[in-house]
């Protein structure tokens, strides 16, 4: 998926911090759902949603990491 480039970030904003926190939360939630599903009762939707949360969390954290890296490079 290719997007048109946005101008490079000038600072690490509150929105970036919020996105990072959300990423961590999603990751934790995904792990909790998967763990409970596997230990109690396995169903395809629960597995799917657990994996989706983990994927979302990892993606958010990767975005935050990329942004921080861009900022460091700029400085």
């Amino acid at each position, binding site marked *: 998926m290719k997007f048109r480039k946005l101008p490079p970030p000038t600072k690490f904003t509150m929105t970036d911090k919020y996105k990072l926190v959300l990423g961590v939360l999603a990751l934790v939630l995904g792990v*909790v759902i998967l763990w409970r599903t596997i230990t109690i009762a396995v169903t395809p939707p629960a597995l799917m949603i657990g994996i989706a949360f983990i994927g979302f969390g990892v993606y958010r954290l990767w975005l935050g990491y990329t942004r921080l890296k861009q900022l460091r490079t700029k400085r």
Partner: protein
Amino acid sequence: MATGSNANVEKKSELRRDVTVWGSYTWGYADVGADIYAALGLVIAASQGLAPMAFALAGVIYIMIGLGYTELSSTYPVAGGGHYFALRGLGDFWGFVAGAALLLDYTIDIALFAVASAGYINFLLPLVFHGLNVGLVVSLGPFHDIKIFWMIETIVLIVSLMFINIRGVRHSSRLNEILGAMDLVLETTVVVLGFVLAWNPQLLASQWTAALHPLNLHQFMYGSSLAIISFVGLESISQAAQETRRPATIIPRTSIALIFTVFIFAVGFSTVGLGILPWQSFASNISDPVAQIAKNIPYLGFIAGPFTAVLGATILLISANTGVMGASRLTLSMSQLHLATGWLDKIHPRFHTPVRTIVIFSMMGMLEALLAFFTPSVMDTLGNMYAFGATLGYMIVFVSLIVLRFKDPYSPRPYKMPVNMKIKSQGSVIDFPLLGILGFIGVSFILFEVILTHAIGRIAGPAWVIICLIYYFLWRKRNKLPLFGSIKHNWEQEQIDVLTGAEEYDLVEEYKNALAQRDKKVKREISKAAPTDKIHDDR
């Protein structure tokens, strides 16, 4: 012959470019994100323990629809949305059919979400006014159990929205932004707390197994076709495209973010819901399913329930609001493209809003809501109609996407739907969208489900399209315009004007270069062919 020109939309209508990145996202989210509040109860009641799969099946198709819309609305950032893409790809007639289907959706959007919003208000009112009978029913002739209190609330909500929209996009867009943000936080909180504090995987598993043995395929198909309504609304982003700053840059980002957020929420809510409550609880509380989940979260339910109901009512109201905005902008675009009367084109001198379309289509939404109250289940009836309009419109949009790759390969596409196959057509290489084909098959399947399983949708939906077509033929005949053919458009100049108006100057340059190269190529081919012709002539 009159020349339709959407490039002049801005000059004529003066729709202002007020919508920012966040505004574009919340505009879409307010519409799509709210769908789950209305659809969750309906889908769980139909699909029972298989509801998460019904949402997932519809969601996968929705992702393809979303990607298709992202490509088209960033390529053609004009207010028309689906009908404009159909008109460019397939001509006036199909442009009108797509417009009629989407217009049905917008008016149903107004009706369904105003009804659902009032449903959440009714969750709250008895808590505030003890003894208030929100379930008051009356009988009128052959019609019984008409929920009169609910009906009056709905009418009040639709009239209020009509006035907000007459006041202008700045007001309603800001309203979307604030409430959209609050709703995002609330939906996340309910899902997270639900999973952490109340979710019982055993309950979900038992309902899942019960639904599979024996499997009721008809009910599952009904549920999955209703589930598509929890994803309807991406059209709003393309509707807002003409009012979005730097649309080609912003729209792909907001659309993709929106697609995945909504998908996770839809599957998440149904999974967490069926792990907290049995499906029968949702079936008996179709009007406020999300509040029912929140109410059953331990320790916090007493506050989470009413709070969810407040926010549910407001976000559903925003969704109804996007219906008013969408219907008015769609008809405005249709009138400017000579698909409907120019009378609708009138802009209010003070508020700069298309006042006539706002009033007419809000009233139409109100009428649909009123009629639905005379059926056994108001939500189910409106949901049926919603699914029909959406799937028909999306099918035409998918065909347009494929055709436009061939007809208009020169327009810059800031975002292109993935999974393409390179093929040669008329001397140039075209990216043939394989995912577009898959999406078309998927939407056709959902439309087939709607026709097969929705008793009201299969009659009322096509009836709406036929009535609109009768109007179209009469109007075009009276104005001496081709009935099945198309009016001549200068699409190239129009595309330049649209991109210039959107301040996408680099895309304007890219487009002009592509056209210049094409012209050069044509000239070269003509000059190559000329000596041969001369020889033939000499002979």
